[in-house]
């Protein structure tokens, strides 16, 4: 925001309140009420407003207080955000960033635990990225703001409290690149967002059992970084996808299709995809745990895959 006066933030309680997860804390004091705009509760309209402003050259960042609320803005995101560059023959750029926390939290209930990656993934014209660590959150956010394409940045409710040492100097990450978390030889585990931590936990157990998993945080949900993924598949010949998305029509489903289409010859076994159950997220703590993929399930899956 300091670098470019056209960057502004639009969302509910982003200004004086500092953001419901404190992401925009202190920004309103520094940049003023117009640049950090507190909106009324009107997702459809303020997303539309952000897109209209972007058509003239501003670079708004829209915050959905919870990703699930952005379903109300689906029309604007799909028809106007994604498609305007195409239907205007290239006349308009829509450099918006749409971000917000999503994913399953701690007993927040079904409507506040939604994973919208799967709903948005077919929209032509948008890019989707999911951050998972403070380091890649900062890098991807900067890249998303600087990108001339509309980017949807998926954050996770439970990852806001992570602390990490990050470089002082400026860095920007590539929006379309996946991150190699742990190189290995036996199996490729593809994951993103919070599931990365479950996978890393499972990886510890797996290493003790003598397996050597390669963990890749795909980060870029649309388009997939098939280069990094492909090289990994060529090396290990086995793929496990661990995601928090629903089974039906989720990111894992698309990724399975993409890998099968492109790297079928390199696979020694069927691709296994572990996703959340196709149910609304229950409130009860134990039920909620069973909805999401747990590290023990990952360990079992790897053992079965590597037999």
């Amino acid at each position, binding site marked *: 925001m300091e670098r470019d006066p056209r960057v*502004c933030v639009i969302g509910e309680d982003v200004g004086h309140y500092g953001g419901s997860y404190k992401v925009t804390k202190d920004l309103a004091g520094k940049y003023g009420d*117009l*640049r950090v*705009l507190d*909106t*009324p509760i*009107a997702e*459809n*309209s*303020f*997303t*539309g*407003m*952000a*897109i*209209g*402003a*972007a*058509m*003239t*050259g*501003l670079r708004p960042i829209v915050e959905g207080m919870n990703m699930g609320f952005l379903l109300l803005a689906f*029309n*604007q995101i799909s*028809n*106007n955000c994604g498609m*305007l*560059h*195409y*239907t*205007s*023959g*290239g*006349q*308009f*750029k829509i450099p918006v960033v749409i971000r917000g926390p999503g994913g399953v939290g701690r007993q927040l209930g079904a409507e506040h635990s939604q994973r919208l990656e799967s709903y948005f993934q077919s929209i*032509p*014209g948008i*890019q989707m990225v999911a951050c998972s660590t403070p380091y890649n959150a900062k890098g991807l956010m900067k890249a998303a703001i600087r*990108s*001339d*394409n509309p980017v949807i940045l998926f954050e996770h409710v439970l990852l806001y409290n992570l602390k990490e040492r990050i470089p002082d100097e400026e860095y920007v990450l590539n*929006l*379309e690149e996946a991150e190699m978390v742990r190189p290995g030889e036996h199996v490729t585990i593809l994951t993103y967002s919070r599931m990365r931590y479950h996978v890393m936990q499972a990886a510890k157990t797996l290493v003790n059992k003598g397996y050597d998993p390669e963990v890749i945080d795909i980060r870029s949900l649309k*388009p997939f970084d*098939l*280069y990094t*993924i*492909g*090289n990994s*598949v*060529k090396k290990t010949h086995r793929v496990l996808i661990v995601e928090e998305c629903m089974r039906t029509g989720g990111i894992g489903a698309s990724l399975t299709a993409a890998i099968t289409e*492109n*790297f079928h010859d*390199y696979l020694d076994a069927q691709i296994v995809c572990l996703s959340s159950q196709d149910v609304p997220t229950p409130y009860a703590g134990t039920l909620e745990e069973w909805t999401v993929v747990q590290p023990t399930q990952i360990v079992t899956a790897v053992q079965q895959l590597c037999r």
Partner: protein
Amino acid sequence: MALTRRSSNLLKSLTTINPTTRLFSTSSDSSITIETSVPFTGHKIDPPSRSVTTSSSELMTFFTDMSQMRRMEIAADSLYKAKLIRGFCHLYDGQEAVAVGMEAAITRKDNIITAYRDHCLYLGRGGTLLETFAELMGRKDGCSKGKGGSMHFYKKENGFYGGHGIVGAQVPLGCGLAFAQKYSKEDNVSFALYGDGAANQGQLFEALNMAALWDLPAILVCENNHYGMGTAEWRAAKSPAYYKRGDYVPGLKVDGMDALAVKQACKFAKEHALKNGPIILEMDTYRYHGHSMSDPGSTYRTRDEITGVRQERDPIERIRKLLLSHDIATEKELKDIEKEIRKEVDQAIAAAKESPMPDPSELFTNVYVKGYGVEAFGADRKEVRTVLP
């Protein structure tokens, strides 16, 4: 019969031409003051005066521009029936006064955004006939390279932001345009046009609330042609006084078939919006064609109603009568202008027919902005499946 119950309201604003002053002058551009057909009605605001200052050259421009728009829409009708235009085609004939009146009151730095009935507004904003017909026929020379179609006309450099298919979605965008103008401290306004059908959309009120909250220079213009596709306004809206719908936002009801009234209202609205924030304009207008080319337009209204409005309130006829009564042009001159326009339109259609279809590679262009090339390829990068430029 229920259908005709309300049609008499449409003929209420009859043409009464009462020139209050007429300056005899040898100069070709004499200033004329004309009264609008009906006075303005205001909601929480004092309406502007009925007397509009105009000039003979402006009236001639109105006549030429409106005739061009009318001819273009009628030509589009025949092209659609000849299956050269496909899909949806929403025609604006009858409503031309709104387009020309608005243009006369504002500059190209002000923004206009509208829904799918956008051909004439595009023309008014500086689009050419060739670009219009080529886009309608899906050719390369169209304003959106043939990839948008009838509902997606845009001209960024002249402040025309389209061209939107989903009813009502353009109003928040319009408020966003106004937000950007306020953010960049420009002294310009944004007009967001919508119809009587869209006036019942929730996002309109959301956007209006935000525009009023932040004093955005947004002007919401309801082009009330009394029918939301096949549903008459009294069947869709409990309160069809759309200019009053803003409640805390002032509104103005304008005779949308009188180009001078439209001009006066838009000028007034621009001054208001720059100082005090949003205002709603309701243009009382009428469309002769059906909602789109697939709608005959006669199942929900009578032909008598249509011909009645055409006889009493046609915008082009009004200007023609003004021109003749003020001796600005003769009958023959006006007929010659119309003939000239007909030729222009025919030439544009012929040129558009010559224009080629878009190249197959255009399927993948403009999905993403250039420079952020997205590639989908195999692992060894040998086989590039596609590059989205």
